[in-house]
């Protein structure tokens, strides 16, 4: 019983690590492309985030399940194959059940296949750990991504359209720039700076300079 309890705690720690400490977008600064591309409305940001959560968790589980059968020298191509398989599943599900959204963000769903964050979690964590832990690690990493996307799209939709999830919040004339491409870069940059500031001011960190990577 106590053993089970301990495992539960460590699962939670894995999830939290993915959301806060190693947040894909704000802390690691990788897989940035969709951060801007789909965040002009909360709905799109949420849907892409959800797709990533699913793909990441499933890829991690699959890799962990097969980790003893994959020869280390050909592991990267195998990982890519597993990732693209799950991305195809999500792509087809979206195309079938969320047509209108799929028209807008379909390309970016397909591009999940090239996300460094997914390959990185498979390589760093899932190829060395058990299925359960890998699943929760993937879940945490995916949720971190989802949170970041929703945060960015929250500001962009509110400021750029004056709405949230389609409901009008601010009836004044909105700032068009925020839903233009430029607004995405601006909001992400400002948020990143803001989180760095919090980190420096309250936690004595050095801030995530971020080398930038895919």
């Amino acid at each position, binding site marked *: 019983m106590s053993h089970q309890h301990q495992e539960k705690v460590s699962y939670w720690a894995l999830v939290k690590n993915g959301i806060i400490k190693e947040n894909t977008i704000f802390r690691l*600064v*990788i*897989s*940035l*492309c*969709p*951060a*801007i*591309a789909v965040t002009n409305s909360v709905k799109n940001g949420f849907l892409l985030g959800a797709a990533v959560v699913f793909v990441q968790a499933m890829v991690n589980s699959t890799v962990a399940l097969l980790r003893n059968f994959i020869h280390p020298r050909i592991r990267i*191509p195998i990982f*890519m*194959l597993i990732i*693209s*398989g799950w*991305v*195809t599943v999500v*792509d*087809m599900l979206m195309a079938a059940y969320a047509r209108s959204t799929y028209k807008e963000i379909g*390309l970016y769903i*397909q*591009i999940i*296949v*090239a*996300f*460094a964050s997914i*390959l990185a979690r498979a390589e760093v964590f899932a190829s060395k750990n058990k299925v359960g832990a890998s699943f929760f690690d993937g879940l945490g990493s995916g949720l971190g991504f989802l949170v970041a996307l929703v945060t960015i799209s929250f500001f962009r939709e509110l400021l750029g359209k004056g709405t949230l999830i389609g409901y009008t919040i601010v009836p004044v004339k909105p700032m068009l*720039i925020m839903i*233009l*491409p*430029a*607004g*995405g*870069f*601006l909001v*992400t*940059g*400002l948020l*990143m*700076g*803001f989180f*760095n*500031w919090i980190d*420096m001011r309250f936690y004595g960190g050095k*801030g*995530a*300079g*971020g*080398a*930038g*990577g*895919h």
Partner: protein
Amino acid sequence: MEKEFLKLFELFIAASVINNFVFTRFLGLCIFFGVSKKMETAIGMSITFTAVMVISAALSWLVFFYIMIPLEITFLKIVIFIGIVAAFVQASDTIMRKISPGLYYKLGVYLALIATNCIIIAVPLINAGEKHTFIESLVFGLGSGIGFGLALTIMASIREKLELADVPRPFRGMPIAWVTTALIALAFTGFSGLITL
């Protein structure tokens, strides 16, 4: 003939400037922020990138229209395109190292980076989705590559100056680069009325 050429030219301008991958489609940002710190690396990257782009666009067009459509396996396009691109990048890496070590020494490091770039997979996907002809695919690949190079060189020249600026501490590094990109992107929206396709 002339009309054909005009259409290709429009496609080229659209791919490189109006729908610039970095500033309006937001792809390849990772490399964009990663290698735009110095002008020299930016130029090396642009050249390698454009070459890989055109060749992989051609390869995946051939596979798509001569293998995947006859066999009716177009639903596997994500898996197959990423395979083609990864295999091609790996192959050119090996061939370049054997045939021209000098060139490899200069541009080889960028090849490894390109394999994980999303533009490189987006271009074949868009080509397939829009049902471009072979020549159109090539032109689209070339335009995308040059557009990316343009973005990289603009950004690199700004960031070299930015090194000397007095930026607030939390904004140093990535955040200020993003804000700068926002301003360039704003300038690029000016191109959007250039050609109405």
